[in-house]
């Protein structure tokens, strides 16, 4: 099976090994260590790690299109946010009559802005299967339509980047509008439970964390499977010489569309897992600056390696957590400085350093 092909690869094995080891270690330390132990991992940390893993999955999705297909999407936050909104709508409906106004159907923000009935696009989100399907479909469809138009017209390079940015920007403005029925700027929040599990319990948190870890693993394997397949090589071919690939008989726009849609869906899943863990989804996830930041994680970790994207996402977000606590006034200097230094001194990102190490250690292995 093409999907299991990456499992035979050493790099994937290492990646999955490290990931699962980390998941197990965190779980064990959280469940087994006494609270006052230095090794105890608090629910706070578990959720934080869960959030990082969501970002990591998002970064992997971006790396797939950017690294291998050469499409610099400055709008991937849109797919992430759409997945997040799909999940958020499900979680909102789960609140039921436990909202402040006790309306059994309408979410609170609709009640106080005088909505009389649930808008049509909110229907179905009370059912988990439907909502989870939408987590994939909403971003997937958007990517399909947008990608179809763009790739068909052969929009490439910065032009494509900028219209992805326009896309997410337009969505941000649209979602800001209260009339859209997604809670405007306040977004969706105050969730109570998911699939019947109380979101405020540590067990649910741990469960979400583990689910995210597994989603990352699956997402990684899917991306890897694409990358090592002939389609992956074709993607690289399209990235470097689109026209040439056409003359070989490949429909470049379909390759682009396929990979783009897969990537958008992965981003949607990341968003869906993100929302219950951070407890809010609001239009700022659509902000172009957020999308740019995702690209920065990938570049920092090392483009076109996938695991580099994971490293980049984890590192930047960990740095952000640390710096915003330790250097509240100066963390932007640290973060900005980090970006600058890494780009200038580590041209191929952190993964580049690792590769060079490996190449130095055993040059034969690298080519195998």
């Amino acid at each position, binding site marked *: 099976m*093409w999907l299991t092909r990456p499992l035979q690869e050493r790099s994937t094995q290492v990646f999955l090994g490290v990931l699962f080891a980390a998941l197990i270690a965190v779980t064990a330390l959280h469940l087994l260590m006494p609270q006052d132990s230095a090794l105890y991992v608090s629910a706070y940390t578990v959720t934080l790690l869960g959030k990082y893993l969501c970002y990591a999955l998002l970064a992997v999705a971006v790396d797939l299109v950017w690294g291998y297909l050469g499409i610099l999407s400055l709008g991937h936050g849109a797919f992430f946010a759409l997945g997040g909104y799909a999940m958020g709508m499900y979680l909102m409906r789960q609140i039921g009559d436990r909202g402040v106004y006790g309306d059994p159907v309408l979410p609170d923000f609709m009640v106080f802005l005088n909505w009389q009935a649930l808008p049509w696009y909110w229907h179905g989100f009370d059912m988990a299967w439907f909502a989870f399907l939408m987590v994939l479909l909403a971003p997937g469809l958007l990517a399909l339509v947008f990608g179809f138009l763009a790739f068909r017209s052969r929009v490439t390079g910065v032009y494509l980047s900028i219209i992805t940015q326009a896309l997410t920007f337009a969505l941000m403005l649209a979602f800001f509008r209260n009339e859209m029925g997604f809670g405007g700027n306040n977004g969706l929040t105050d969730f109570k439970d998911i699939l019947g599990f109380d979101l405020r319990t540590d067990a649910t948190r741990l469960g979400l964390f583990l689910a995210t870890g597994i989603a990352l693993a699956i997402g990684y394997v899917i991306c890897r499977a*694409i990358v090592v*397949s*002939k*389609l992956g*090589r*074709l993607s*690289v*071919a399209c*990235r*470097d*010489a689109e*026209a*040439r*690939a*056409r*003359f*070989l*008989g*490949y*429909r*470049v726009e*379909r*390759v682009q569309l*396929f990979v783009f849609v897969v990537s958008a869906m992965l981003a949607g899943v990341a968003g869906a897992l993100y929302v219950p863990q951070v407890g809010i989804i609001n239009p700022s996830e659509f902000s172009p600056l957020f999308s740019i930041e995702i690209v920065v994680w990938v570049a920092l970790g090392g483009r076109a390696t996938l695991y580099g994207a994971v490293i980049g996402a984890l590192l930047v977000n960990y740095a952000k957590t640390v710096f915003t606590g330790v250097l509240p006034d100066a963390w932007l200097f640290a973060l900005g400085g980090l970006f600058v230094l890494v780009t200038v001194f580590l041209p191929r990102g952190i993964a580049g350093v690792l590769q060079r190490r490996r190449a130095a250690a055993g040059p034969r292995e690298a*080519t195998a």
Partner: protein
Amino acid sequence: MSFFEELTHRDRVFEFLAPAPSPVDVRHGPILYLEDVSVSFDGFKAINNLNLTIDDGELRCIIGPNGAGKTTMMDIITGKTRPDTGSVWFGSRHNLLALSEPDIASLGIGRKFQKPTVFEALTVFENLELAMATDKRILPTLTAVMTAEYRERIDEVLALIGLTGLRDRPAGILSHGQKQWLEIGMLLMQKPRLLLVDEPVAGMTEQEMERTAELLTGLAGQQSVVVVEHDMGFVRSIARTVTVLHQGSVLAEGSMDEVANDPDVIRVYLGEEA
């Protein structure tokens, strides 16, 4: 003659309406047929009422001054450039002007570019793998498996183009001449019905030229080949029919000797001593 062709032409329009695309139909004549093709760029007529017919299995050389429109003609055949007027048929069934580049490529038209273009980030091997004639749709490509048979074919071609030693190096590091060879290799992998070869021997040594000549003449017969080249020695060694383009239309056509002695050709192209 042309009237005749036009008639046959007409009645094939109906066949073209048949839903299922069928392979190239050469029962009724040429494999490639260009009629009254013109194209201009910002008012400059690069191709001017060009008529050209290539028979199935033919090896045709096309020469002509720089800027005569040879590459542009290939661009038109492969769908890269749309002509302003005229028609281009592949066999009797396929109107190439209605098709996109990948469609044309899938029909079996392969091309080597004047300026070698290969996938620089991929290895030499992978370049050939992608060129290989297989199902080129998305899902088959995703699930494609590298069989021993495929591998053998690629290795054969690698040996033929002399790049076996650089099999796993990225194509980007190849020297100019090596890229030329790789492009020829990719063309071979494609197994096209019609090969369009734009300046294959530029930058090759005499011996390499000989090898290329053998290769191309060997192909002719089952496959049709159109070669554009400025090296007269090379052209002479392979040519049966030579077409001379000038200012976007045919200036002369015939055997190498006929053409080489044509005063117009000497004036605009060959110069005194060739």
